[in-house]
């Protein structure tokens, strides 16, 4: 961490987005995480993705649980409301917030301890309900804030800094998210900023439960030789299946690739996800194939990254619940209270 406060002033020619905001308008407080922490790169990627999409910062709500990863919402989007909730319970708080106001953009930040251990249940149920959110797990395979215990995503055989070996099976959150019906599933690596920013942008525009598992090495407790979540290991075993490019409805499709190399996925809000395929026959609209592919590559010791699955016709929870278009938190007495006359009739029916 740095102890120097960031100056508020910035270069007058700093580029501005469609809202007239600079990248600095999307920043938060100075990080207190360790220097070199993968989580800070993810915060930077979130800042860039939101800036590039020109999302109004105040229309974003950022929620988290407890842990190193859950501290990060303080370090991005300072103009957004944030909520540092309870360990492993961000998904329910986010779900409630989303029920109250369907018009905001929700970013849920969690870690592998927060989501794969204590909060596995809430993770699962928020995903299967189709809460319209970006759910990002900053996955370092270790408990950082309590100093180095294994987490549920630590690989079998992974060695801790103290030398003990993990004998428990790891949970692959992307595989789980696919099983649970997430309509957008991706994995990325905090060290691959261009991939991560593109995936975040795609996730932010996805009208359903978008899940990103982001491998994020812990420089303090899980970056040593023998760790499967270290910078070196992930770089050496990263297999990207595609490169994604997000095209908004207002933009012409400018990216051109040779035929056969790309696939364009149009979501029902008009956004287009243009994908440059890296893996040969990988179809991102095939949930079952994605699961099989993930399992096969895991057995080969590879970490698959990229957009693993997307359902362009995704529906969200409000669609399922058939709630009104107006956010529930904007409804007033006239829309909510049946009134005295109705009550008197009700009284009469109870006599």
């Amino acid at each position, binding site marked *: 961490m740095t102890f120097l406060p960031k100056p508020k002033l910035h270069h007058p020619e700093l580029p501005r987005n469609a809202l007239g905001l600079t990248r600095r308008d999307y920043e938060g407080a100075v990080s207190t995480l360790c220097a070199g922490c993968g989580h800070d790169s993810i915060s930077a990627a979130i800042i860039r993705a939101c800036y590039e999409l020109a999302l109004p910062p105040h229309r974003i709500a950022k929620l988290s649980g407890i842990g190193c990863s859950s501290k990060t919402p*303080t370090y991005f989007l300072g103009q957004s409301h944030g909520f540092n*909730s309870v360990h492993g319970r961000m998904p329910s708080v986010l779900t409630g*917030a989303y*029920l109250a106001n369907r018009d905001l953009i929700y970013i849920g930040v969690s870690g592998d301890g927060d989501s794969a251990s204590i909060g596995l249940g809430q993770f699962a149920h928020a995903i299967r309900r189709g809460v319209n959110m970006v759910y990002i797990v900053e996955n370092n395979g270790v408990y950082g804030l309590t100093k180095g215990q294994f987490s549920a995503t630590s690989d079998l055989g992974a060695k801790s800094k103290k030398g003990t070996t993990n004998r428990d099976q790891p949970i692959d959150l992307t595989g789980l998210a696919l099983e649970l019906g997430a309509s957008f599933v991706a994995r990325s690596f905090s060290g691959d900023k261009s991939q991560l920013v593109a995936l975040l942008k795609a996730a932010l525009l996805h009208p359903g439960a978008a899940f990103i598992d982001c491998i994020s090495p812990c420089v303090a407790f899980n970056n040593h030789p023998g760790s499967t979540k270290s910078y070196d290991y992930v770089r050496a075993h990263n297999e990207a299946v595609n490169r994604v490019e997000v095209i908004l409805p207002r933009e012409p499709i400018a990216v051109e690739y040779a035929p056969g190399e790309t696939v364009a996925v149009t979501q029902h809000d008009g956004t287009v996800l243009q994908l440059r395929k890296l893996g040969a026959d990988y179809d991102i609209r095939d949930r079952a194939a994605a699961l099989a592919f993930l399992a096969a590559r895991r057995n080969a010791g590879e970490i698959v990254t990229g957009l693993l699955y997307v359902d362009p016709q995704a529906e969200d929870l409000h669609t399922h619940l058939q709630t009104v278009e107006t956010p*529930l938190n904007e409804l007033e007495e006239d829309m909510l209270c049946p009134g005295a006359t109705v009550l008197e009739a009700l009284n009469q029916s109870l006599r």
Partner: protein
Amino acid sequence: MPKPLVRVNEFVVKFANINGSGSASANRLFARAILRMGVAATPRNIFPSNIQGLPTWYEVRVSESGHLGARGGVDLMVAMNPQTWDKDVASIEAGGYLFYDSTRLIPAQKFRDDITVIGMPLTAICNQEYSDTRERLLFKNIMYVGALSALLDIDVAELEKLISEQFKSKEQLIAANIHALHLGREYALKHWSCPIGLRVRRANTVGNRIFIDGNSAAALGAVYAGATVAAWYPITPSTSLAEAFERYCKRFRVDKESGKNRFAIIQAEDELAAIGMVIGAGWNGARAFTATSGPGISLMQEFLGLAYFAEIPAVIFDVQRGGPSTGMPTRTQQADVLSCAYASHGDTKHVLLFPEDPAECFAFAADAFDLAERLQTPVFVMLDLDIGMNERLTEPFRWPENRRYDRGKVLHFEDLDAGKEFARYLDVDGDGIPWRTYPGTHPKYGAFFTRGTTKDAFARYTEEGAPYVENMERLLRKFETAKTLVPKPVLHRASQESRFGALYYGSTSPAMEEAAELLAAQGITLDRMRIRAFPFDDSVKSFIDEHEFVFVIEQNRDAQMRSLLLIECEADPRKLIRVLHYDGTPITARYIAETIAEKITFSRVVPLRKALP
């Protein structure tokens, strides 16, 4: 044999049935017919953790004088369950009546000679009349209601009317039920001299009161209060509250044009998620609630603390019941007082409301949402199974046409845009309640980061001790403010000055009222105060101070309210005398009166006025 009981409009009928045999609706029909005759009747359903096969009882207290509490004892037992025969027969008052299915021969020693026995071959009649097994089972129930209408002189026209209302336009069902009703009635008229010593006489004591269960009333209160988000997990005895909310929402909250819902209800994966959703929705400016019971309260503890510290409105309906596991949980208790009052880790205190009946369930439900938003904190509405799941005669619901929701201190776009200063946890007004903003309000002003503790008045992260203490002190000031906003206790002064006081709350209310009459008849007078909320109004402490002894009547083992009074009012423990009832059945007037009389005698305190000989 003692003389058979002769009572008009003042008796207790208990039905002993087998769960799942369809008796519930027939029994309900019986109770409602008496109500329609203008006589107060209070049913209590005692049911097992079971869908089919285990014993279940339905007790109807008929009381023209208006006593709605459980009395204790049975004057007429309708014994339809061989499993519980011995116990059921034993519970009949001397001189009382036993009505039973005489199809199967029951040995003579299984009866008592101090009661009147009325045996009707219900099964035999049904088997002769109906060939379908299901019909045989269901119409047997209607048939005994028919017989009882003759035996107790209940107006059969009221029963017919209720059947017609129940089945609305299904003519066939109406005719079949009315036929079964008359089969039973005719048999009784032919075989016995009707009515027996117990009878219902048309009266005018019901007035404009309504008949509804507390859970439905609370759910309706939530609809009226504008709750839009409900998250819950199924748990007896609170489930019917969430289900009633859904029912009322479908009736009153569906947009006519679009067919879309002005509500969102989530059956969560557990109580942790349920309260998490409520907190998320409250944080985001919607009125949200959960309905649960003791185990759910246990699971929600961590979140409740967060909501207290982060100052987020939330409404929790706790329909209290007996302890862990299954079985006792279908019985009533008031056993969550402490676990709610101090829910969570760290220094926490919560606002509790204690409704006495469905009318207050409705009113307090509505008030709870105003209080939660005004105080920015969780508010508990403490029902119990007795008022939650039993229908009760209660004052009609009221909603002043000009009533507006109190959404509390919220800075909106216009306020922020006009430059109004915003500091999330600053006590601007001196009442301990800070101002808040909803997410997404203004592009430049009003955003803040919500945390449990570890913050200063401007919601900035700090691990310093001083801002923590300052914040905790402000939360105490806020609790003082809460004291001025919650429902005041209700005081009933005895007809003459008394050294004794009684403090009670919730569903104990009707039994306590009646107990006071029973005690007065013995020359023991009591001043009574019904606690309706925590934090306690200052008058609660004065009430304790001005009496020599104060009985605290509760339905739990550990005298939880008494503990709360000792802690919060710093009362002298010797002054507060426990009167506890916690076997899972509702507390009775007889129990309260006997216990208090015994304690007074035991302590050799001479009553101010001796009972007349």
